[in-house]
């Protein structure tokens, strides 16, 4: 598997991991699932899953590059993934509020 493919997998794992961390936050959970209740176990699973996915992301980075290079690539991918998740949540909230509508997302 090429380094580029491995790095792409690392990014996807980071994206999923950061999304799981976002879902562990009750505000973002409500934003996506409305009134559907979020139990303690779901929140814990989101956190645990998020951490595991970030770990998997690092493994892909380490497979693609030497470890000392991977520890540079990994946090940058996590930052990018976090920005992607935040952008998705913002756009999702805007979409629900309608055109020109104000949103209380993440309040």
């Amino acid at each position, binding site marked *: 598997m090429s380094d580029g493919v491995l*790095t792409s997998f690392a990014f996807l794992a980071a994206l999923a991991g950061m999304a799981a961390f976002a879902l562990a936050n009750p505000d973002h959970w409500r934003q996506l699932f409305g009134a559907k209740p979020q139990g303690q176990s779901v929140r814990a699973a989101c956190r645990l899953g998020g951490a595991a996915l970030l770990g998997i992301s690092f493994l892909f980075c380490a497979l693609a590059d030497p470890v000392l290079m991977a520890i540079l690539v990994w946090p940058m991918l996590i930052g990018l993934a*976090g920005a992607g998740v935040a952008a998705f949540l913002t756009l999702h909230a805007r979409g629900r509020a309608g055109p020109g509508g104000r949103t209380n997302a993440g309040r």
Partner: protein
Amino acid sequence: MRETFRLSMAYLHTWLGLVVGFVLMTIFFFGSLSVFDREIDRWSVPETRVQAAPFPSFDKSVLPYIASVKPDPESVEHTAGEVIGALPPPDKLKPGDVTAYTNHRDPILRMYVAYDVPNKPRDPNLDHVHVYGYASVDPVTGKRLPDEVQERLAIGTGFFFPLHFMLHLEWMELGYWIVGFAGMVMLAALVSGVVMHRKIFRELFTFRPGRARLRSTLDLHNMTGVMALPFLFVITVSGLLIFAYLYLPSPTSLMRPLATAQQDAEAASTGLPVDPSGRPGQLASVDAMMAAAKARWAAQGVPGEIGTVSLIHIGDADAYVSISRDNVDRVANPETLHFKGTTGALLYEDPPASGIESVYGFFYGLHFQFFRHWTLRWLLFAGGLAGCACIATGFLFFVAKRKAKHAAAGVPGARIAEAFAVASVTGMLVATGAMLLGNRLLPTDLPGHTGWQEAIFWLSWVAALLHAGLRSRFGPGATAAEGLSPAWREQAWLVSGLAAAAAIANWITTGDHIVKTVGDGYWPVAGLDLVLLATSAASGYAAIRLGARLRSARAVRVAERAAGQEPAHV
């Protein structure tokens, strides 16, 4: 106690950030551009737009040119100020060492010759004072580039790169010290920023652009700061470490005798003499030494293109040749092989780095980014821009929070802060765009071509500051949107125009339009043109949005007045 500490951190974060933020913007923006400094060089000196090539023959492409290199007048002037007595005439100076280097991103072999100087230095802590002369070689043809091309300003490595670490303030090394101070402030701002925001991690993914401007600005400030926090911290620490010898000079001043003894002990153990013997010696083939080095790297299973070759003590019996590989596969610089100049025998191979050397080498390498990893290069570029966004939103928050209050009290503080903020965000882009446009439009035979480009940069920046100062206004009763200085929108339009004009001027003056360079896969130029066009589009969009916001706020205000209501302060 906890709240008092948090408030203290907030005070520290706000005021240190405001005072030094303008310098930090410069450091981070031009540091980000320096990630692609070699590519910007290709764009700004079209004669060098060729594909990168391996290190050519040292015997045929470097040695014959040493005699034709002349001491650089600026270097002569600089060294004359460092030594006791008058320097010998430049044509009487004898070349002592020569170094030639290239890398996988650079299609030019650069070389510099260090000339020995008989004078004693004024500062006893300085030793081996030299005068330098420079030359460039086309690695494909092996021919030396004409002086006119060699001396042309390469904007990436020659202007943007040094701007980010010394601000082009050479007097008393003032620029280095200002940047060092700003780096320390950045570290303090990062730590205090994390402490002062109670919900910083809880609101990590929260951006509310529909909310009041203060809230959305703070959201963006927090988000860019936290997402890029590891990068911002590490890049700042590594930048400070690189110049630690300047900020903490004890190893070369107070501990000078120890350092000298260490140098002598190393010379004795490695067989690499610090000083020439004074006896003449015939140099063996350096190409053969390069071939031996490549064979050794191949046996070790590491990439083996030559990066740097230094010939020390030219013409001396104790001459030696140091060869390093182009560092494409790792962060820290690789170990160097040293050969005896007269025989070509391997004298010494640098041992694997110690723990401390490895840590330092890692920080040094991640800042200089010699490696071949384009994804990481772009990610680091994005990290630098995230740092700029964090600082810029910090300015906006400071101004938005205080502007109405200052306007009501007749205090100009927020207006002044906003003028500087405009100058350090859009003004910096205006200066950069104007310089790139000037680079393409100024005739290369214009006397003082380099000086004109630099003057365009600085004058554009000063003009942007003056414009921002004149246009910054906020009267009592205005809404926050109306109160936003029109300079933001006007300069955003200017940035849009300059960026597009620079890309078009590149096409007209060189024929390298975007379709051609993308089609040819010549990414050094295509990449910069694409970034210029993206900047133009983004700035134009921002200007349109700012204009719409202003019109909307004015319409609301007019409607409120017609209804006999007091306008709302935000």
